[in-house]
């Protein structure tokens, strides 16, 4: 049975101040959601030592973590709502659609194996109509493309004996949808003379958590902890280009796994830009970056902001000479991982995305930069600007500098 008693912090400090409700993106656009306060600390208070309550209203929680960021009393609201989701799924079951959506890794493997076909199929109206009817996946929702040459097919581990060594947690998105991001990361590390190994890894578990499949997420967590610790204990740093993956490894595993090993791993995990910024501070970064005259807007993913690390992507992009980047400051994109792919959430997803789309339009930059593949999916659908990962910009700047020599 699920045990929410392993939490580091308690819900008892909740003063019902409503800061989480006022900061919750979903509560901001719909009254159908029960809200983080009511379904987090208050539900927990209600069921403590009592019979568990299955509350359907939890379905609208996206696990974005804005409640955690807003709580002045340090209550980890999203851990409580993650358990409420798990209880709901355990009691009420989950649909075939949610099973598919939460299996990002399996879907990635299959879809990329038949990539040209799957991509085409996802753009065909009759197929999408059928998917909406049979699975509840909205017809108008765009999907990310899958790549046949996925990153697992193209990358082979190399050893160079460098002082710093990186175990790259690629994540499902960069593996199956955006191998160019993974490729750029490897390049950036090469420019810094750092060896990159790809450890055996499973999906970080965030899509499973978001769909209430706590047991599966816990299973993936313990597999990843075991696999990654084998690297950190040999002096590797774990680095991720997806901010949801790094959030999972840094934070979520502490609450859904909670072992000493989870804690040990968390101390070695970095977001890619955070890692580069640390190299910069230690004087180890290759700062031979060529000027780039682009003008970009930066969209901060919720799971980046939840890591409490400032804004490393902006810090790194500002190192590129003549590069003009501006934080959009637009809040949640509304895609929210698997959330935006669901028919009954589609309206909320679109309403949430409006502020972001308007900020992109108002800024009128050349393109948008964001770390998150899901935010990119929403940006692709709602704006006419290209979307790039910050590591791709850095890789290009390094490459231009190399060509200039």
């Amino acid at each position, binding site marked *: 049975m699920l045990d929410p008693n392993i939490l580091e912090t308690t819900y008892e400090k909740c003063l019902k*101040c409503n*800061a989480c409700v*006022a*900061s919750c993106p979903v509560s901001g656009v719909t*009254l159908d959601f029960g809200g983080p306060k*009511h379904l987090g600390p208050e539900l927990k208070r209600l069921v403590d030592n009592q019979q568990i309550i299955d509350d359907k209203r939890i379905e609208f929680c996206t696990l974005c973590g804005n409640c955690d960021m807003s*709580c002045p009393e340090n209550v980890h609201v999203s851990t409580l709502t993650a358990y409420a989701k798990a209880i709901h799924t355990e009691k009420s079951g989950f649909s075939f659609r949610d099973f598919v959506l939460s299996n990002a890794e399996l879907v990635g493997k299959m879809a990329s194996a038949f990539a040209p076909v799957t991509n085409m199929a996802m753009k065909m109206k009759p197929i999408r109509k059928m998917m909406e009817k049979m699975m509840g996946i909205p017809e108008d929702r765009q999907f990310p493309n899958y790549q046949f040459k996925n990153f697992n097919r193209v990358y082979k581990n190399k050893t160079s004996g460098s002082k710093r060594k990186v175990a790259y947690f690629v994540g499902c998105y960069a593996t199956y949808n955006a191998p160019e991001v993974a490729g750029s990361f490897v390049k950036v590390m090469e420019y810094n003379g750092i060896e990159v190994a790809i450890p055996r890894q499973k999906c970080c578990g965030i899509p499973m958590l978001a769909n209430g499949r706590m047991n599966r997420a816990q299973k993936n967590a313990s597999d990843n902890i075991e696999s990654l610790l084998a690297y950190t204990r040999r002096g590797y740093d774990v680095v991720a280009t997806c901010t949801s993956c790094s959030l999972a490894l*840094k934070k979520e595993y502490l609450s859904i796994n909670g072992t000493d090993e989870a804690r040990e791993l968390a101390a070695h995990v970095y977001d890619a830009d955070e890692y580069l910024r640390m190299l910069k501070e230690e004087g180890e970064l290759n700062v031979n970056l060529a000027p780039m005259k682009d003008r970009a807007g930066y969209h901060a993913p919720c799971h980046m*902001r939840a*890591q409490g690390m400032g804004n490393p992507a902006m810090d790194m992009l500002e190192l590129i000479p003549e590069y003009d980047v501006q934080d959009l400051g637009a809040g949640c994109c509304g895609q929210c991982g698997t959330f935006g792919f669901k028919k009954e959430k589609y309206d909320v997803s679109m309403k949430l995305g409006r502020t972001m789309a308007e900020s992109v339009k108002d800024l009128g930059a050349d393109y948008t930069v964001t770390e998150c593949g899901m935010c990119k999916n929403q940006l692709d659908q709602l704006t006419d600007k290209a979307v790039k990962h910050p590591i791709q910009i850095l890789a290009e700047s390094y490459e231009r500098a190399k060509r200039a020599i």
Partner: protein
Amino acid sequence: MYDVVVIGQGLSGMLSAIWAREEGCRTALVTTGAGKIMQSTGVMDLIPGSDGNLNEWMGIYHLGSWQQSRLNDAIRKFKTLMNRLGYPYKGEPQDLIPIVTGSGRIKHTALYPETISPVTEEGSAVVVGFNELTDFQPLFIRKNLQKERPLLSIDSIRIHLGKYSQRLMTQLDAARLLDQRDIRTDCIGQIKKQMAQKQIGRPDLFIFPASLGEDEWKETVGQFHSELRAKVTEAPGMPPNATAIRLNDRLKREAIRSGVRFYADTTVVGANMDGEEIKSLRIKTSGRVSNLSGKQFILATGGVLGGGFEITPEGIKESALHLETDSSGVMARLPVNLYPVGASKGVQMICHGIVGGVYTLLSTYEAVCGLRQSVTGGVGNA
């Protein structure tokens, strides 16, 4: 790594960070969660809980007369900022105005957003409540207000927003609904109809909960004003008040867009000292404790209510940096590069529980002036 590191995300923290960026400082803001600004009214009193005038205020807060011109500068700077952010503030600390709160009490305040209007001694007013909002009871407000304004003729009516909610609706939820034109129009229709039924004449003032729109507050207030043909005011009560959320959200967005780096869900657990100077902060996120270095630091953690101080049997403890304080919460040996603002300056600043916006504006302004001086002229912390 940063020029300025601000601790705390309340009014003083966010203003410090925004103003530090305006000075060209690389600025970080470290925060456990939202500041008490979220629970505030968004209205800035001189002496919270008291109607004392400017002279009394200067006395209570031990301010010299030379600080009066600084106060005016601080308020001007704040008003300029809020004008730019599309949520203008009115009022002067020399001239307090009476406003009605969500409990129907009158309080005198110095600075207030444009959604608020003063309550007169005489004339007539109608209190309008929404059925969906349990924490704003028009009858209760009317009776309380009547005690303080015996010459004012007051009526109260209840209307509905017409939306079913899966959670207890707050004033902020109501504000977001009133951002929609069709809901506003429907509400105005209900008000007119009820007034006709109850034979209530057109009043001088309509009193609403702090719910008159969030992003579209201007359109909302404008439509109520023009179609009801009377002044309207918000009466801030139980949080979250739209009056405060508008202020909070606009300041936060401005801070982010101007390049302040937010360290959210992060708690400051101590400081690494180098003699009389803070070298870096020890910050804790769920996975680890790390150091965040800066040249200057602004302590904006609030007082006892904000969590900046804890009252213990051994005395008052400063809770972020664990610096030694005297019995009134004033730091015994203030590090030369640390600037406490607002309630962080000590408990004599929080005589009625909270520090209040006007003092926050002044102390934040002074701290930012201090940053500038120590950058350009090497003058230490005053």
